[in-house]
């Protein structure tokens, strides 16, 4: 039973507070008899003890003892004030760990989640800057502001734990701001830990909002202790490394932006797409063109220009800089570097390169994975680096740049590099390649993306890389990208990822089969050709294959795959598309090649989620819907009837 009493602190807590307050009022208004006071103090003591507030209980006991010694109203009221203080300080953590009050406006909370995330990201970025260059006063200000805003918002929403943690860190940062406190690695650690803790709490708030089970967030006590520890250990003021310079120029970096629901953006995109179609119908309208009116022509071409510009602008709205993604990795590198005792310098460029936010999102995990691999297996220990004559500090590069309508991402390190022979040996062992084959370096390196290559932990130790690299490649391919490896043994490895600017648009070949038109994404098409007579062969089981440039490739007829009527069932009257997917090549038989078109990809929705071989739909130039083919799906499980 006594165990339970410590559980229901809220009850005891309220009662305790009322008692203390009542006493305080009594002492102030009249002078109660010593006996009454004694009883009241004793009551507080027992309540406090039951509620688990040891210090309050002790303080109450001290008061009783003082009463016995000498009873003066001043001493009593002073003692009472102290008691209230002690009680408050003990109440605070208890209250903070109470469940976050979510009986609030969900919209406000959602806004808080988004905003807090942004601030936490800024905090992290600025702390890393600060770690490199402790004299960056601006960074201190920025971090301070971040915590301050979070504190304010959290307080407003009754998120006490978040508020309290932010408040404590803010206090320390204030000391740093005032030059009373130096930026030490310990400080950076604690502040980052606090940011992580807040991130966790924010996630829990978000989960609560979404009605999902919230991840357990440990109490803030340990963290708060660390923050307090900072204050007590290094009290020596800094000489001048962080000079005060309380310039409030900081406001200038506040970006002028609005937050917009992505569904609204999607809708905007849809409407703009429709407008482009309407414009195209109008411009090519035979009646209008036959008029041959110069003014009309001028106006129409003006309309074309405007719609084009509008479409580009709308696309640009969805773009976000890749910098935030790099920053996440900067943090991982920093943490791993400290943990593994490998000093590493991160070199980042092209943070402002913009790409579709969907891509940035799905790029997060693969990038993290590769960076981890670089840290883990690529970069050697300082001792090993010294032996090979390399500088003790390793380098990891993250670069982004535009290249002819795509994004080029580079993840490089100056570590061990890939060992061609070891990879090859392992691949032969695992039966991934024949021992006799003569493979180029890049072909050998591609082997680390094979699923079989990464399953065994042993392999990663030997080859240096490979943990889930197949997942990385799959993810990149899902985004219609390519990944390549450059590596020199002993000098380092660079991964090159080429991605489209956006997932929303795909360049496609419009192909015809009978009455139907389909869109084949261009990135999957290697070539289109007319089969030479005699080049298509049929196995006894009905499977077909084609000899293309001395390679035998499996062949599939799209009309059979989809069960539609073709223009001609003679393969030599048709066209062959040589397609590539998941590192393999196939042939697809279609009737016609109608043209090449850039299309906006739209989901077919849940009604068609079982339809295989389709990647989505697209509105064609005439306003009709065309189906976008999914290369793997077309050759995958579907039955050929």
């Amino acid at each position, binding site marked *: 039973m006594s165990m339970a009493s410590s559980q229901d602190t809220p009850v005891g807590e309220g009662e305790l507070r009322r008692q203390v307050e009542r006493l305080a009022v009594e002492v102030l208004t009249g002078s109660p008899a010593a006996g009454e006071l004694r009883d009241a103090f004793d009551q507080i003591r027992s309540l406090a003890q039951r509620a688990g507030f040891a210090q309050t209980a002790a303080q109450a006991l001290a008061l009783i003892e003082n009463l016995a010694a000498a009873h003066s109203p001043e001493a009593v009221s002073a003692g009472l004030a102290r008691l209230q203080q002690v009680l408050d300080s003990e109440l605070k953590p208890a209250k903070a760990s109470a469940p976050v009050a979510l009986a609030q406006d969900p919209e406000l909370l959602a806004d808080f989640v988004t905003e807090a995330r942004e601030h936490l990201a800024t905090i992290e970025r600025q702390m890393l800057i600060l770690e490199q260059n402790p004299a960056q006063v601006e960074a201190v200000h920025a971090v301070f502001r971040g915590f301050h805003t979070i504190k304010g918002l959290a307080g407003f929403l009754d998120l006490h734990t978040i508020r309290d943690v932010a408040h404590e860190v803010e206090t320390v940062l204030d000391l740093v701001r005032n030059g009373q406190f130096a930026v030490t690695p310990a400080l950076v650690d604690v502040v980052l830990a606090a940011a992580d803790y807040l991130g966790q709490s924010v996630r829990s708030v978000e989960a609560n909002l979404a009605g999902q089970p919230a991840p357990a967030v440990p109490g803030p006590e340990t963290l708060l202790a660390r923050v307090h520890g900072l204050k007590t250990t290094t009290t020596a003021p800094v000489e001048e490394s962080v000079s005060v310079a309380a310039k409030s120029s900081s406001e200038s970096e506040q970006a002028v932006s609005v937050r917009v629901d992505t569904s609204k953006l999607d809708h905007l*995109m*849809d*409407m703009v*797409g*429709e407008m482009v179609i309407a414009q195209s119908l109008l411009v090519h309208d035979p009646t209008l063109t036959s008029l041959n009116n110069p003014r009309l022509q001028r106006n129409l071409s003006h309309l074309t220009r405007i719609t084009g510009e509008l479409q580009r602008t709308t696309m640009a709205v969805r773009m976000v800089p890749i910098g935030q993604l790099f920053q996440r990795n900067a943090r991982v590198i920093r943490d791993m570097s400290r943990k593994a005792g490998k000093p590493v310098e991160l070199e980042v460029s092209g943070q402002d390169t913009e790409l579709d936010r969907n891509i940035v999102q799905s790029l997060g995990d693969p990038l993290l994975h590769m960076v981890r691999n670089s840290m883990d297996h690529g970069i050697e220990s300082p001792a090993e680096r010294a032996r090979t004559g390399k500088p003790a500090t390793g380098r990891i590069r993250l670069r982004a740049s535009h290249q002819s309508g795509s994004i080029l991402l580079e993840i490089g390190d100056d570590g061990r590099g890939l060992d061609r022979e070891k990879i090859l040996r392992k691949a032969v062992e695992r039966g991934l390649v024949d021992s006799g084959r003569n493979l180029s370096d890049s072909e050998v390196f591609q082997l680390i993306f094979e699923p079989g290559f990464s399953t065994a932990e042993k392999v990663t130790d030997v080859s240096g890389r490979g943990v889930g690299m197949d997942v990385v490649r799959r993810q990149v391919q899902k985004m219609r990208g390519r990944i390549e490896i450059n590596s020199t043994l002993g000098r380092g490895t660079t991964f090159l990822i080429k991605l489209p600017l956006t997932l929303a648009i795909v360049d496609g070949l419009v192909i015809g089969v009978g009455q*139907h038109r389909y869109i084949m994404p261009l990135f999957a098409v290697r070539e289109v050709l007319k089969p030479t007579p005699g080049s298509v062969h049929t196995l006894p089981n009905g499977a077909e294959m084609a000899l293309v440039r001395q390679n035998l490739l499996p062949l599939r007829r799209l009309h059979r*795959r*989809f*069960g*539609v009527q073709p223009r001609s069932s003679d393969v030599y009257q048709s066209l062959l598309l040589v397609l590539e997917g998941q590192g393999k090549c196939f042939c697809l038989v279609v009737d016609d090649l109608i043209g090449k078109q850039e299309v906006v990809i*739209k*989901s*077919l*929705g*849940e*009604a*068609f989620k*079982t*339809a*295989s*071989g*389709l990647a*989505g*739909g*697209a*509105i064609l130039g005439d*306003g*009709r*819907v*065309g*189906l976008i083919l999914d290369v793997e799906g077309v050759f995958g499980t*579907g039955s050929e009837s």
Partner: protein
Amino acid sequence: MAAALVAEESTKTKPDERSGKYLAFHLGAEEFAIRVLTVREIMGLQEITVVPQTPEYLKGVINLRGRVIPVVDLRLRFGMAQVEYTQRTCIIVAQVQGESDKIPMGIVVDGVSEVLNLASADIEDTPDFGVSLPTPFILGMAKIKGKVNILLDIDRVLTGQELRSVAAAIPGAV
């Protein structure tokens, strides 16, 4: 008789939640109606892109102002005979409950008739056919202006797991 009177009495005191405005349309000889609130728009027939390897009643997809939406042929959904599309054939775009959200879906019907304003008194339950015909997608029957309209719960019609043939449930509907 007495039971019917009682039932009528109770509907008077507590308004039937099925009452309200309905859009009436027909399939063959039979008149159906769905709640006007679920209807987004009515459009003429347009070219439907066939999606391969889907049930026959899923006619395909159309472009609804930049959105790709599925189209269901209600005749085929109900197991009724397929007919040539005519001038009067049209697509009702309705908001249907999807897995998580309401999604727009096109419904091909033989023709749209009118908007009915149904009072509680106009609506009665489906007559008892005996044991074998559960028709959860039918809200009830409306008797108005000497005609009978079958009131459909469009969410259940289009997303219901297994659908019994309406043709069988309503003799003469084919």
